[in-house]
């Protein structure tokens, strides 16, 4: 490929031969990928000391194969459990998990809350497109009430998770939500998460023009980004809004940012004590 026209972040951080993103045209996952590379670049982190883990789903292809680093593309829903083994084994490695709303809010829900409770030093980026993208548009535990999908032809009878609230209740050290429109805030959150010594969770509301878009009648990815901008409400402002006012809105911002000893560090302390 003509390197002249290749994005500097790709030249610097992409696996050779993996420049081409594996996602559909206009998919938000690529935006998230770019934000992560930018965060790493701005922090000047060594890619050789980061492990990227992911599960199964479109969002789980963000680092795989694009990122030129150690990449652990695992089974559906289990990436956080794999990542826990990596982090405990070598606490000097930074561990970043990319996952989807099906991957970590459906089948992997337990690993998500347990990782938060354990406060294991992992940054988790959950790309929430409110649908199962990869398998073709089935309802997810994040799909809004009433929405028709491939498997809710008469409308979704269930209610979606507020994932940030859930992860906060489970004990995470850092919790934030942005959309793929809010790339700069997202990069800055990612930088915080990369440096945090505890479990960090960033939910990114993302467009899936091909599946979710089809069901809600908005197939244009750019239009989705415009809508994200319009319906996003900063956390601070949302506090003073009623439940009705918040209907259909996306509350964005940083919800939690506390300090508590992470599990890998606690374990290292134990080892030091035992092996004096």
């Amino acid at each position, binding site marked *: 490929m003509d390197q002249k026209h*290749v*994005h500097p972040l790709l030249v610097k951080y992409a696996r050779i031969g993996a420049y081409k993103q594996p*996602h559909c045209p206009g998919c938000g*996952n690529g935006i998230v990928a*770019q934000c992560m590379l930018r965060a790493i670049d701005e922090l000047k982190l060594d890619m050789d000391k980061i492990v990227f883990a992911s599960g199964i789903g479109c969002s789980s292809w963000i680092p795989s194969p694009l990122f030129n680093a150690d990449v652990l593309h695992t089974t559906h829903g289990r990436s956080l459990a794999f990542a826990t083994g990596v982090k405990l084994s070598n606490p000097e490695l930074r561990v970043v998990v990319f996952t989807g709303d099906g991957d970590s809010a459906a089948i992997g829900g337990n690993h998500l809350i347990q990782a938060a409770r354990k406060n294991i030093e992992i940054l988790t980026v959950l790309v929430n497109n409110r649908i199962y993208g990869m398998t073709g548009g089935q309802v997810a535990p994040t799909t809004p009430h009433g929405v028709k999908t491939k498997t809710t032809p008469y409308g979704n009878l269930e209610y979606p998770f507020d994932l940030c609230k859930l992860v906060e209740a489970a004990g995470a050290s850092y919790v934030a939500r942005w959309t793929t429109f809010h790339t700069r805030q997202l990069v800055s959150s990612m930088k915080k998460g990369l440096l945090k010594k505890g479990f960090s969770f960033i939910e990114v509301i993302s467009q899936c023009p091909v599946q979710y878009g089809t069901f809600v009648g908005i197939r244009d990815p750019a239009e989705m980004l415009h809508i994200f901008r319009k319906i996003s409400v900063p956390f601070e402002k949302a506090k003073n809004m009623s439940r009705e006012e918040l209907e259909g809105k996306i509350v964005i911002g940083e919800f939690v940012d506390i300090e508590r000893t992470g599990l890998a560090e606690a374990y290292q302390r134990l080892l030091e004590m035992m092996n004096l």
Partner: protein
Amino acid sequence: MKKVRIHINEDLCKGCGICISLCPNKVFAKSEEISSKGVFLPVIIHGDKCIACRICEEHCPDLAIFIEAQDVEK
């Protein structure tokens, strides 16, 4: 003032139109021709209006577009 170069990578671009739609200064338009890969690429129609805000770059899902900007003396 800035000297700006907009790079669009035709191998990577999937023609999603995000850059076209998000650019505050309407620098791009959609090509009328289908590329050999079946994609309608963005074309630069008002390159001079680009202010190097990088909104297009940061929102491109395929890292297919980026801005080179140099400050130049006025």
